[in-house]
């Protein structure tokens, strides 16, 4: 087939392109990812029984805000990496800012605590399982985010996979907030982030294979 024939083929009977489709696709992916991670959490771990009481505590919203803000930053970066010729630019800062704020809060809490209390603040009661649970809960959102990115045209596949993975990890962390008993910033600024980084690393590894187009 000559190039001219290909052009005729591509240009004949063109239908208008609906460019609201990409945002819709991501909205659907986030909705599916968040609800499936929440259902998994509720079925296998259970929503914490004292949720009604802790919602009045600012630190509950601080922790949830951390996961949501990091997810927002990851979404911004994923969207930019999904479009050819768009640089991520300041998008990286949107991921860094929530993490840095959490670390500063953790530092303040640790500095104000007794020396003996510092390690318990950092490890809580669940440090052995927290990151693993967040990583496991992120499997359905991870699939949903990859599906959304595959409908786009990423050209930096490793980065796009990593960003989509981080978005999935943050989604799963949001769901896990409804179960997790740990409230201390030193705990979640470390173990939550570690849990989110697992799907991100997996995404970076899978990206070049799964996101190719």
């Amino acid at each position: 087939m000559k190039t001219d024939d290909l052009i005729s083929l591509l240009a004949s009977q063109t239908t208008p392109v609906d460019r609201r489709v990409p945002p819709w696709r991501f909205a659907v992916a986030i909705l599916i990812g968040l609800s499936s991670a929440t259902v998994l959490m509720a079925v296998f771990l259970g929503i914490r029984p004292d949720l009604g009481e802790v919602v009045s505590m600012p630190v509950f919203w601080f922790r949830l805000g951390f996961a949501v803000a990091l997810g927002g930053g990851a979404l911004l970066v994923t969207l930019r990496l999904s479009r050819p010729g768009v640089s991520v630019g300041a998008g990286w800062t949107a991921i860094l800012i929530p993490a840095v704020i959490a670390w500063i809060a953790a530092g303040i809490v640790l500095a104000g605590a007794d020396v003996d209390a510092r390690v318990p603040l950092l490890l809580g009661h669940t440090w052995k399982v927290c990151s693993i649970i967040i990583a496991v809960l992120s499997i359905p959102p991870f699939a949903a985010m990859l599906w959304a990115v595959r409908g786009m045209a990423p050209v930096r596949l490793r980065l796009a996979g990593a960003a989509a993975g981080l978005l999935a990890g943050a989604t799963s962390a949001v769901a896990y907030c409804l179960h997790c008993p740990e409230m201390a910033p030193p705990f979640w600024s470390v173990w939550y982030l570690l849990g989110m980084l697992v799907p991100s690393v997996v995404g970076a590894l899978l990206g070049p294979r799964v996101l190719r187009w």
Partner: protein
Amino acid sequence: MSDNDATTSAEVELRWCFLQGLSGDAAQYRLFLGRLSSHLRAYLRRRLPKAPADVEDVLQEALLAIHNARHTYQDDQSLTAWVYAITRYKLMDFFRAHARREALHEPLWEDDNLFGTVDLEPAEARRDLGELLVTLPERHRLPIELVKLQGLSVAEAASRSGLSESAVKVGIHRGLKALATRIRGLT
């Protein structure tokens, strides 16, 4: 007119044609693809000095990719940057597939002049997309043949093939994506 002005006005004109095409104007879209292909051909000839026979293949692949990705273009975005990112992506794919590692060391960051040069002389493509099209499953191939090659409307193609109208549209959309996948399988 300097080179820079020519590049800028090509960007403006091509962008206009492209946006008309996105809203359904087939004639403008064809104009866009035609002019774009002459720019891309010149660019690819520069990038593939050691493989002139492959230029037309990579060009066709890039055009198909640009078509399949057209929903990802943002109105406020430079068309040059968007087209260049896709073409470069397909070119890197080609380099990888052909293990022409040395070519990767050549600087590729010259997108500012992408629309500044024109090459109107197509070479023969080595790979025949027509033959590849035939290998697609019928639900993809039939809509493409009826609508895109025979020029039937979607409604006519639907009644001719017994498919629903949305199945015809989806068949074309998925078929062109499948065609791009087939090409990758070959290289």
